[in-house]
Structure formats: structure tokens, C-alpha cells
């Protein structure tokens, strides 16, 4: 799966949890750029991303994610595994 395809699925997870589409996701997007993406919704979004790709993140990976680019990389890594 290429990066663009991963991003499309990630975006769907964001929309499902945040219930709006008023955001653009790219590598440098952080929680500050997206309405509603905060500490409580963060884990809900991550759980939704896990479900969508049928993967399970490591807690350490989740903690070191700083932006959407990091999230994509972790998804890629987990898909390979």
C-alpha cells in the first residue's frame, strides 16, 4: 500500500471520530492544526486507525508520534509486520 492510499484511510478514521471534514492531512499536520484532535480523541483516532488497517500500534510508537507523517510511517511498519 502506498503512502497516498494509507493517508486516505487515515483520513476516514479522523472523520469518523471527529465528525467533521474541515481539515487537511499531510506529513506535517499536528494536533494543533485539526479541530477536535486533542488528548482524549487522540487515542480514539489511533484505535480507529488500528481497526481500519487491522494492526496494533506499540505504546512506545504512539508516544513518539509527533505528526501525521510519523503516523503514516508507523502504519507502514506495522502493515509490513
Amino acid at each position, binding site marked *: 500500500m502506498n503512502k497516498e492510499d494509507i493517508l486516505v484511510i487515515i483520513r476516514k478514521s479522523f472523520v469518523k471520530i471527529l*465528525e467533521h471534514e474541515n481539515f487537511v492531512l499531510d506529513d506535517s499536520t499536528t494536533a494543533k492544526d485539526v479541530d*477536535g484532535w*486533542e*488528548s*482524549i*480523541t*487522540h*487515542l*480514539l483516532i489511533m*484505535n480507529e486507525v488500528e481497526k481500519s488497517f487491522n494492526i496494533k500500534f*506499540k*505504546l*512506545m510508537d*504512539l*508516544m513518539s508520534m509527533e505528526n501525521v507523517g510519523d503516523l503514516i510511517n508507523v502504519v507502514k511498519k506495522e502493515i509490513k509486520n
Partner: protein
Amino acid sequence: MNLIYSLHKSFKQNSKNQAFCINDSFFTYQDLLERVIKIRSAIVSQISSDEKYVGLIANNDLETYATMFALWMEGKAYIPISPSAPLTRNLEILNSINVKVVFDSSENSNFSLFKIINATQINDNTTDKFEEIKFNENNVAYVLFTSGSTGAPKGIPISFKNLNALITELDIDDEYKLNSSDRCLQMYDLTFDASLTAILPALLVGACLYTVPSDAIKYFYTYKLLEKYKLTVLKMVPSIIYYLRPYFEEINAPSVRYSIFGGEKLYEDIVKEWVKCIPNSTVLNHYGPTEFTVCSTYYKYKAKSENKSHNGVLSIGKPFKNVECIILNNEGNVVPENNEGELCLSGDQLTPGYWNNEALNTSSFFMHKTESGEVKRFYKTGDLCFKDENGYYMYVGRKDFQVKIGGYRVELGEVEYHARNHESTKSKNILVIDVKNSSNNDEIVLVIESIKFDAKELMEYMSEKLTDYMVPKKVFFVDNFPHNKNGKIDRKQLRDLVKS
């Protein structure tokens, strides 16, 4: 125990120990004491002796903690102010107490309407000559503000007598004994009174506190501290483990000696899984309203035998030695064992009363003749409980429309008050309800009886008026509110409606 003298003694005796780890920097008790001395000197020279109440912007730095203790040693109370809360709310709090001076260690202060003292910029070379501690047990130690149903936050002053009573109870309790080599989590904002039971027991024995910045994702940062520094004492709100639950398999923390919860309902099934992550730990469930100085009862979880619980919620245990609990029915009579009623508390931890709020003081506090024949002052907690045949108290729910979000008390009435004040909801029926999110945590949602409209401005308005945890996470539109047989809005049905 006299808290202030004991703290001062501990700072001196443990001068070489680490007292705080803040953003990965360590500070010794000597560092803490030096800051306290400088700040005391500034208090004496810059604040008049009759100014008893001082604002404290709750930043995550040594100066902020040192200011708490310096104010106490000078016989003054701190009013903790969350830097992330809306300014209008913070100003309302400070003005209601008639505060003149605010300690703010921020680079740029938002509180220029007050006299600002920045504790990071006190240039005073005073060394330890100081000065007698000014102690009077009737002085107020802090005033905390919680959500009020009429739209304005309500102030709860806690005296040194109240705090001493709490610390004495913790001290004489054999189940909870910290020592100077403990590494303790401090995840609470200072605006949350549970911060005191994280901070004080640790500092009284010379242990080190590891703080969580207020802008951090608390459950991740807590885990990071746990992993990196092998923490031994974790005092947390239950929602931390509710969020970490999907990752419990990865957590192995044999260093933990105590895992203490408080501030929210603690579910037994999650604790059962959690104890596998902390195999050497005692788990305690603390219970207590802010009005009764943080903690009034606790339950010790039994890893190897059956636990006391009700509807999956772990018991809140038994009261501290000097705390009296009674359960009253609507007529004000004590109910028999295993009968539900409102939990009422009496003892030295009880607040002198709400700040300038006669109506609330009349409705919340009352005199009651106890079994021993003594007439004592009690507080109605608003919590529905029952006591079982073995003397364990079980938490059932709230009597009113107060909910807990991440351990913070939220009056749904206060949220509704602000939602109603916005132009977009004029002449519309609205209701704020609490629902469970997919992590089984409570969250607040706003339901509007109307055809759908863009609620962005409404939500922005609410964010300006309310602290973030009070702002509804979602807005739902319904054609008609469901009503029950008595014509009242059926909240349960409404919850089901928004869930579907």
C-alpha cells in the same frame, strides 16, 4: 501532624534528595527550600499582611510549587489558576475572592490587571535566616473553584486545620507508607485538589515527584515517566488506565509499590487487568469531595480474593479513622444497611463553607445528632451510596446533574447556562448530557431540539466561557426531546438516541 512545620523540617532534613523532576530536570530539596525562602522574602516585602488570598498561575515549574509552600509559611492561601482555562473564567474566580496579587511565572502574563510577582525573577540573596512560620490553623490554605450549577464557579476554601486533619489521617494509616527513595507521579493540575495527596505525602518523607506538564497527553506522559524513571507511587485518575487499557500487554512495571486512584468511578474489571501490569503494587481507591479535603474513605483492592463492588464499580471502602459517614434518605433519616441514600460526611476535614454563598451553605451543610449523641456538622456530598453488612461503602451514582470528566467535577447546569446564552440557541430547547465514549470514559455532549445548523460559532463561544474539559465534545440535533410519563425530559432515552 502540623503540615507546615513538618514540610519545612522535611525540606531541611532531605536537602540533598531530589524533590522534583520537571521536564526531565531534577531539583533537590535544597533547591526547593532556596526558592521558598526567596519567595517568602518577596511576599513579606511586596504583599501587605492583611492580603490573605493570592492567585497562583499553575505552571509546571519549581517556582510554582515553591510559591504554594512560601504562601503557606507566610500564613496566606493560594488560589490556583489554570493557565489554559479561559481568561474570563479565571478573572471571575480571582475577582470573586478580591485577589490583588497574582504569582505568575509565565514569560508573558495575562493577568496584568493584578499586581504580578514572577517568582523566577526575584533577585534576593536572602539565605536561611528566615523567619518564623506564620501558622494559624484557621487560616485558609487554598480556595478551589469547581463547576457551579448557576453558571458561576463556586469557591471551596480549605483551612490548615482541614489539611492537617487529612495529612494526619494519611500518616496514621498503615496501608500507605511512603519513604525517601520513592519516585512519585504528580499528574494533577494544581486546580484539582487530588494534587495535594500526590504532592504532600511525597514531600513530607523526602521522596521525589515527577510532574506531568499540563499540555501533555497525560496518559502517554504518565507511561513515559513510569518507563523511564521506574516510578514507585502512582496516584492517578482512573481515566488514565481506561485509555491505556488496549496497551496493558506492553506495560510491565514491577517497580510500582502503590497505585492509588481517585476522582472518578473505578471499574473492577479494569483494575483486575491493571494489576497484572504492576505485580508488586498495593491498589487503593480513594474517595472524597473537595469540600471534605480531598479524601475521606478508601478501599484496598484484593488481588487474590473477592472484592467489594456494585454494578462493576469498586467499593469506596471505609472512612478514615476520624471521619464520620452517614447515609440519609430524602426525609433526612439515616437509612438501614444496604439501603441507598445520600452520603454525608463529618469531621475536621470539612470546609468552613462555600465562599460567599449563603444559599449553598444552607442547603449543603447541616447539624446532625450522631449515634454517640454528639451534634456534629455534616456535608451532603450529593453522592448516592449504600453501606453493606461489613461496613463497606458502595458508590451508586450522583443525586444531581453533576458529572466527572477526567476527575473534574462538571455541573451540567453550568454548561447549559452558557450554551443557552448564545444567539444560535435562542428560543430553542437544549440539554447537556453525559455519555460514554468508545473508551468507556464519560464525555459531555450538547443536544439541541432544532433542525441542524452550523454550531461552530456556538462551540467557539463555549470554549471562551468554559474550561476545555467542560466544553461539549459533540453537538446533536433532534426533532423532539423524548419525555417520560411525568412530562420530564427522558435523559436515558436521549442518551440512547444520540448513541445510535
